């Protein structure tokens, strides 16, 4: 035990009791915790009202979702999907009809899409790496026509590792790629992969 002369005390800050404002004199409780006092202020009215309001809201919110037809997440989802297919029944046939079209397509867009999307497998110069050489006249799938290249990009060759790009590319973008691929035919880049598939002149 230390020397007792450093005057044992009740609180660490016994010198500094709480500052009580004039209008608080009547509501100071006789609580004292290490010098901390407590006032007997009432609960703020707006706070109490807010609490009640959130409780009322809770009841309404629960009622809205669970005691009215068609508001559950599952119901809303089913409804949104039905509307979707109805709308699509028209546009679906449109999409089916969409094939290669030069409208809104450009070689420049095709070139940049090629670099970002295709070069990883077909090579920067389309010389072929994992995927085949795209600059020769030999085709593994289809006959090298605009429509057949379009279709190959669109549905992919999943078993060979090429994904169906229609999920990521718009029809016009696929058409741009077709234009670009047709434009590099015969460029015979260095380290070209040997011909694969059937020759189509």
């Amino acid at each position: 035990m230390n020397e007792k002369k450093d005057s044992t005390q009740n609180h660490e800050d016994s010198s500094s009791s709480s500052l009580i404002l004039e209008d608080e004199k009547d509501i100071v409780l006789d609580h004292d915790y290490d010098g901390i006092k407590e006032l007997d202020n009432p609960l703020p009215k707006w706070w109490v009202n807010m609490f009640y309001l959130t409780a009322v809201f809770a009841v309404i919110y629960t009622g809205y979702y669970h005691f009215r037809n068609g508001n559950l997440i599952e119901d809303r989802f089913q409804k949104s999907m039905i509307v979707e297919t109805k709308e699509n029944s028209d546009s679906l046939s449109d999409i089916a009809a969409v094939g290669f079209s030069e409208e809104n397509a450009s070689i420049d867009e095709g070139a940049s899409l090629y670099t970002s999307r295709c070069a990883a497998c077909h090579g920067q110069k389309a010389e072929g790496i994992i995927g085949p050489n795209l600059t020769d006249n030999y085709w593994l799938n289809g006959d090298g026509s605009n429509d057949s290249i379009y279709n190959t990009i669109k549905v992919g060759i999943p078993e060979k590792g090429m994904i169906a790009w229609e999920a990521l590319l718009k029809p016009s973008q696929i058409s741009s790629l077709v234009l670009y691929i047709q434009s590099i035919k015969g460029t015979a880049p260095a380290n070209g992969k040997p011909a694969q598939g059937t020759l189509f002149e």
Partner: protein
Amino acid sequence: MNNHPQTHPPKNDTFQYDDSIVKKFIIATIGWGFVALLVGVVLATQLANWTFNFDLSWITFGRLRPLHTNAAIFAFAGNAIFAGIYHSSQRLLKTRMFSDVLSKIHFWGWQLIIVSAAITLPLGITAGKEYAELEWPIDILIALIWVIFAINYFLTLKVRRERHIYVAIWFYIATIITVAILHIVNSLAIPVGLFKSYSLFSGVQDALVQWWYGHNAVAFFLTTPFLGLMYYYIPKIIKRPVYSYRLSIIHFWALVFIYIWAGPHHLLYSVLPEWAQTMGVVFSVMLLAPSWGGMINGLLTLRGSWDRVRKEPILKFLVASLTLYGMATFEGPLLAFKSVNALAHFTDWIIGHVHSGVLGWNGFMIFALLYYCVPKLWKTKLYSDKLATTHFWVATVGIILYIMSMWASGITQGLMWLGLEDGRLIYPDFVETVTKIIPLYYVRLVGGLLYLSGYLLMIYNLVKTIASAPKNQTSPSYSAPALQKVEHDNNTSESSHRWLEREPDILTILVIVAVAVGSIIEIIPSLTSHKYVALETNKKPYSALELAGRDIYIREGCYTCHSQMVRPIKAEVLRYGAKSELDDSIYDHPFQWGSRRIGPDLARVGGKYPDIWHYRHMDDPRSMAPGSIMPNYPWLLENNLDYGLLEKKLRVMQTLGVPYSDENAENAIEDAKAQALEIGKNLDPSIDAKKISKKEIIALIAYLQSLKEQLHHEPLHGATH
């Protein structure tokens, strides 16, 4: 020293407080806070520029992120809480801690836990549940140390010299009790080896337990103890009486009772039954008033002293802390609405939300505590008030940049993900929604760097302060009479709560009841009723190789960026595939629904890309997805798969109720090797099938390809037994 109640007239005891334990926790807080912030800045850098993953397994985002969250919550905030609790409780109870030895075991045990976490998490040793990643041996250690802390604390209450316990102590009691319950239930697991276990729960049950834990870690680790600290330090520092005793009673009990229900707001639009989701929403909304009750009781205590806020950095920190607490607890209920959550869930908005809480509310409260306690405990003056004020402003600007950039990026992500035009996704390419927000990731990084810089100023300031402390530090003695037995009929006018404040045992029991009600009503139905678990599923358990791959997925922390939960929202179904169902994750111990989409959802990734795509993508994601910010995982192509535990893994899964036959388990290794060879052969002619089939990448590919829609013969929702 005789601490027992005496029957003869009051006689003053003389005693000293154990401040050395407080000093220890303070130094640990300062050190670990630096680590937590530094790792946070590293992660922010990695998101802004993926090359900072350095192709090193132990430093990749997926492994570091759990280290960051655990360090911030349990090391930084944790040590600070303990420092504050040991410091304030002894003074509020007028007694030294019951046992210095138990206090020391608590301190050193907790540091051992943190060091174990800092070693195991970067190594990929993880249980795969957010904020509860630590593996079972560490979990047991946490439980033991926490119980020792609890014993020491409750025995200290027994030897107190203050008859009534103050509101801060109520909050501490709620913390000690509830954290123990949460930790133990959520960590229940069956070990496979020393560093590997499988959660006792699976799928929707695991999700519900996990977020009951996760949300209430926020409640009872980052809120209640800090409210306790607030109730001690604000009146102490400002030397003003607490504004309203009644408010403290009401908001304490409301907070403790309501918080525990709100966990399911983390699982909105998931396969959790919707009634539980709605409970999560409405209880989150009802949390607003109890949360703000704490804030206003703190702010109104400053009444008449606001001029001091202008001059004193400690008060600046306190006021900003309370303000950010008020903001975060308003934002929380807002994010919990189903309609808001549809947009905000999985986005960076949530990240901004938690950081306004932890950096603002917790961080600033801790800074105030440190600036107040360090000079006091070392019996000197703060080295520089000016530096502390600079710290405040730098940190405040840091927080603002952090929160605002995350609002902007979160809302951008949400809108781009959900954007539809003519029934098609406007941004079908996920990478586009990532590259769009990279500039905001840089803004966030600047915010984080500012916050860290302010922190360094504080370290310098505090080190200088401690260095200036007088050499021979003596502990002052205090005196107070021991508690007397009171007659029960001598105070009939007092309120019943005043009586309760004399009976901490009963108060503790009431706290347990308060947190038990919400827990039981929400969790027990999902654990016991067959209705929520699809029994008539045709879901096949993972093959041995897929299971091994899943463990690699967990090890690499893939869930820190990828969700596995396609919500029943049109845009999600168009983007990812059929919405998730209950039985998709029925064998997932633990579940891997995730909470963020830094990358796309993976619940339906199986079959979407060929094996060779995954192979090349894991080696170099940008070769397959230009613009991707995912780290490279070259080691998966080099490391041989460890088949050693495979049979044991299937056996443990069997115990957990996954329908593997004994044959499955016995042949696990053979089956896995055969499947691996098959995948290796079909990869690419240029790749040596035999060699590659031994590698970890093959198991991971097998797992990813298994993540597919289950074909149902009948609707599962009606499945009852």
